[in-house]
């Protein structure tokens, strides 16, 4: 008998797709791997608020980038059916339209499949991952341990160098809007998860080229 079962800590058996994801984490990406050969999953979520403990994910959007190419064919856009009371609110705001609603399980399954062997990317990614963990918790997902790259951090680092005083950063200068403007990205479909993920992906390919110029050429250097 497993010790966890003995102490009554055991949860339901983990679904296969979660185990498959966790298994891929065992094989780490070699730190010498060139950035141009990396595979990324750029994602964004739209939530009911900013509280990772109380708020819910409304929608999720993601697109893959590999070898510096944004793969439109991999683009995902999912909506979670809102809880009943939220649904009323949404009706009032007139946001109801035909949407590709999926179950939480389908969302997590798709996300984890895409996340395998990929570097996760997002703008203020930590928040999105925390929200995704919240969606996945009841399904048996504990921690999303994929390597994670925040486009906010990368943009700051390209300006300030690796070691900078976080207090010296005016974070509004590095909002997704501001960066899009600076990097000449057309800010369409702002504030839909898929639209923002697409913007972040465009931002990523541009930042990576900048990074390469500054000597950040391998996975190790990118994450370090």
């Amino acid at each position, binding site marked *: 008998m497993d010790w966890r079962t003995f102490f009554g800590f055991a949860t339901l058996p983990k679904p296969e797709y979660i185990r498959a994801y966790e298994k891929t984490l065992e094989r780490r990406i070699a730190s010498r791997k060139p950035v141009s050969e990396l595979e990324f999953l750029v994602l964004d979520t739209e939530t009911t608020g900013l509280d990772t403990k109380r708020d819910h994910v409304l929608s999720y959007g993601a697109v893959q980038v590999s070898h510096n190419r944004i793969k*439109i064919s991999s683009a995902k856009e999912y909506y979670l059916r809102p809880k009943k009371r939220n649904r009323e609110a949404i009706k009032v705001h007139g946001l109801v339209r035909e949407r*590709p609603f999926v179950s939480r399980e389908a969302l997590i399954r798709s996300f984890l499949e895409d996340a395998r062997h990929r570097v996760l990317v997002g703008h203020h990614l930590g928040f999105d991952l925390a929200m995704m963990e919240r969606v996945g918790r009841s399904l048996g997902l504990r921690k999303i341990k994929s390597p994670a790259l925040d486009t906010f951090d990368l943009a700051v680092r390209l300006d300030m160098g690796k070691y900078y005083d976080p207090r010296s950063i005016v974070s509004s200068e590095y909002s997704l809007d501001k960066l899009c403007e600076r990097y000449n990205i057309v800010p*369409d479909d702002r504030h839909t998860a898929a639209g923002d993920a697409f913007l972040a992906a465009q931002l990523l390919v541009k930042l990576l080229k900048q990074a390469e110029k500054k000597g950040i050429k391998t996975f190790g250097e990118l994450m370090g």
Partner: protein
Amino acid sequence: MANVVVNRVIDFLKKYPPFSFLSDELLAQVAKEVDLVYFEEGEFLFQKGEPAKSFFFVVREGAIKLTDHVSGKEETVEICDEGDVFGVLALLGKRPYILNARADEPSLVIAVPVATFEKILNENNRVSLYFASGFASGQLVVRSGLSQTQKVRALFGRSDSENGLMLFSGQTAIQYSHPVIYCPIGESTAEAVARMNRHKVGSIIVVDENKHPKGIITDKDLRNRLIGQNLPYDTPVASIMSQPVVTASKDLEFSKIYLNMVKHRLHHLVFTEDGSADSPLVGIISDHDILLSQGNSPAVLIKALQESRDIHEMAKYRNQAEGMLRYYLENELAIDFIAGIVTEINDTLIRQAIAMAIARHEADFPEVRHIAFCFLALGSEGRGEQLLRTDLDNAIVYEDVPEGLKEKAQNFMHLIARDVMDILFACDFHSCPAEMMANNPRWCQPLSQWKKYFSRWIREPDPQSLMMATIFFDFRAVSGKQGLADELTQHVYEEINQGKVFLNFFAKNALLNPPPLGFFRNFMVEKSGKHAEKFDIKLRAMMPLADAARVLILSHQVVGINNTFKRYEKLAELEPAQAALFKDAGKAYEIFMRIRALEGLSTNSSGRFINPDSLGKLQRQLLKNAFFPIEEIQKILKVRFQLDYFGS
């Protein structure tokens, strides 16, 4: 299911050929499979000699240079920018690239996989033709510009009935003269001419007892064969008629009829029951009718308008003029020519309407029926640059009459104005929302009153006056006594010279609409309301230029030039130091007129509100460039009229 990201790609691709030819469904299939690739300046996309990649490219933003090595040096062959397609040739020919492709600036490029596209090439005829036409002419880049599209259009022929040349516009549009006028073969010429006069026609068919056509007599025959030969009026029609007549069946297709007439150089074609000369007469068509049905001969249209006394017919002719306008615009004729023609047509219509109104009412006003008056066009029509039938702005000025006749004159003029406007409305012109029209009693006044109006606007330049001035100062005499308009112009300049400060106010007023700074993605679009997200080309682009031109031309005391673009031409002449800028401004204005008219025709609206995203790449580029002079012109106004020190 297409998501937001795929839709983004679709929205982009569908603006550019060959993708614009695809059905929504096919386009979605293509868009779903593409990659977006980013290249830094100087990076190679592919190099000469490399085997073809499995995709071709569309520039989404930035610019890609196609280069070749010529005697050791890299030389640019082509530059591709937004919407251009390249790298197809190697792909379809399955052979190595013959050029280098290199990013000329940071560029985002869409890579379209060949597998998806090959399927479409096979399925969609237009797309393969599109590529074929480009390659046949040795093109490396599939241009999204105008010339390519036109070439392709010529290749396809137009899919629908709106043929570019409007030669064969379909039989329904032809007007057969009906009923046909004829006379028996035994009649004298005098009798035949009496019939022609009675029916106001220029030709008559001579028929035998079975109503079979035997000949035709036209005005020309009367001149050449009767009067010219000194023959008496009782000469039988049979001896002067042209014969035999060329006949055709009335069921013939229009294109065949037309060719028939061209081939035989016929002015008339006679229709009979079975098409032969030995069957009863049913109708006649003249080359005049054919020209009219084509609608692209302004001279013919104007003549037809002059001869018409029927409101419905006039409305129909005016509608045909719209087809002509479209044809001219699509074929990029010079805008001053187009504006000139359209203005002439509108003026003819107004003159005709006035003649009809006078004929109807003069009997009731014997004392004032010969009163001198002048019909003034105002606003854009006054400037002779109204291409579409948008709002009417006009007025009537008439000579001052003795006290006793005042009321009569006023009543007579009001009736004329009312009838003229009714005819114009019937011809699909729109009523001015502010009622600045001759049928508004306020704007149908004797000269003395008009002088008072203008004096007030010039002496008390409050916002209301200035608003009026922008519309009324562009008045132009359309019909009637030109002298009345001249006298008014004279008066305006006298008043302005007395109170020069008016021009400063007028200049300040011209700055009310700032230039549409920012371009491309950030056109200044309307923030809310019915036209949210649309660009108001009239308010943002045309009015600033028109207002500035008016002020400047007034300050030079130039008389008789009303077109905004001609005003800038004149200004360039008067101020050589600023000639380049004024010429640019004039050109810019022409571009705005063209884009607005095309938008209006395609959306059946005033064309005033334009969705920037709906514009083709070329048009956006044109617009973008055309904005530049606005700001410069406004700067000139500011300095010249010292507006920074000029309190409001």
